[in-house]
């Protein structure tokens, strides 16, 4: 068996075991009535009378997460570029990013809730959560270029911009792709937290309502859909990250 097949096999067994344990715990009532079996949650999700509601909520959260992901990662990369290309700004940019990251997401969420309209709030919270991860990843990637390669560019008399474009940026792509992969689930979490405060649509309000009204199956359905969205984005960007690492990292 090749290592790749082994990994895949191991992963499949692990996930299957976890799902089986979930199913067993639900059927046996081991963890009480608020822990339904997986099959029951799945049946709830696909039932025609719930499908429209869940799809609408999931699509709403996915849109917000996607916008937040795009905005936050662009801003994170842009700030990292600014700090690298104009070194005088590096200190200020770094402190700013650290402060943004230091505010708990829940605090950002409530601050944004009173600042932005409810429809925009989830996007803002998601993008702020993603921003710092991409800023750190891009800064680390851009400054990790090997010294000898920098020396070659300097001796050649390459301009600052050419060094950036031909050397630093390509060398940073694997780190940036890694940051994107890690921040994809964060954007989903950020969108849901942003929805929590005032939104009318999305998985967030669904979770709040289901919890308050003790709709156990709906609560689990929304949670499971959110988890699946995060995992799918993480896995998809993992493919991108591996491709970038394969091409741009020395072996």
């Amino acid at each position: 068996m090749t290592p790749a097949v082994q990994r895949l096999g191991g992963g499949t067994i692990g996930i299957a075991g976890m799902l089986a344990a979930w199913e067993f715990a639900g059927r046996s009532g081991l963890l009480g009535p608020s822990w339904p079996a997986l099959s029951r949650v799945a049946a709830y999700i696909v039932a025609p009378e719930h499908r429209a509601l869940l799809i609408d909520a999931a699509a709403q959260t996915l849109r917000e997460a996607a916008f937040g992901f795009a905005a936050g990662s662009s801003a994170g990369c842009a700030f990292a570029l600014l700090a690298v290309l104009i070194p005088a700004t590096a200190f200020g940019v770094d402190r700013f990013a650290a402060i943004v990251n230091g505010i708990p997401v829940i605090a950002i969420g409530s601050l944004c809730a009173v600042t932005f309209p409810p429809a925009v709030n989830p996007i803002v919270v998601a993008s702020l959560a993603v921003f710092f991860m991409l800023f750190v990843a891009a800064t680390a990637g851009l400054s990790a270029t090997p010294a000898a390669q920098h020396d070659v560019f300097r001796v050649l008399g390459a301009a600052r911009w050419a060094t950036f474009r031909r050397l630093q940026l390509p060398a940073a792509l694997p780190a940036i792709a890694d940051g994107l992969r890690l921040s994809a689930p964060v954007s989903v979490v950020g969108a849901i937290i942003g929805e929590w405060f005032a939104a009318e649509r999305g998985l967030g309000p669904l979770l709040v309502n289901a919890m308050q009204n003790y709709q156990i199956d709906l609560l689990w359905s929304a949670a499971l859909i959110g988890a699946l969205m995060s995992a799918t984005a993480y896995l998809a960007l993992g493919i991108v990250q591996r491709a970038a690492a394969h091409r741009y990292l020395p072996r």
Partner: protein
Amino acid sequence: MTIAATAYITGEPFAIHLRDVRVDYPTRRGQTLRALDGIDLDVAAATFTAIIGPSGCGKSTVLRLLGGLLRPTSGSVTIGGRNPVAAASAHRLGVAFQDHALLPWLTARDNVALPFRAVGRPVDAQRVDRLLDVVGIGDFAGTRPAELSGGMRQRVAIARALVLDPGVLLLDEPFGALDAVTRRHLNLELQRIWSEHAITTLLVTHSVEEAVFLADSVVVMSRRPGRIERVQTVPFVRPRDRSLLATPAFHALVDDLTNALDFTDSVA
């Protein structure tokens, strides 16, 4: 092979002058570390000079000064009458290090073409291909560094150093990480390439044999603070080939310089 067919070095070679050069590094404790002291060195245009010396004697510091990567604390350094930073900005310096420093995402051909792109000139594809042939990797032009052997990577690095037709070639232990057989082979190749087109070359090396085989003169440096102990002219005619390595005169000179190195070691 005629000169015209392989005329990939056409620019004017530079002379190099170092006058009373001192380099101090600040240490963490606030003291200064003197890396080079009182260095006077004249390198005539179109000659090959090797610098040998004990580890940490500042050999590489001399090369970093010439590459414009470091400024002297005092004294003057000129390449072709200019300071090294100006020579670098004019894209007239070629460099290869022990770390081949090839970009892993580019093929051998694109790595050799990189200097054109790095300085914003149109790529001279013909010249790139000719240099790939000169260093003997024409058949691997489309291969990435990861799939090349250590010796082949250094060949690519040397082609890259030559591609902009530099007035000076700076080589810092370019074969230092290679096995002995590959290293000797690349020395023969470098000697051949150099004999076809004399370009002012400075080679930093640990190997006395390599220095004597390749150079017109060998500079022996002392332990830190680096000073020049001796400048030895190498009398052997070019082109030199493998047979030189077996001659008593070659061995006598290598032994003599090795003794000089051992002496600088014992002084410290």
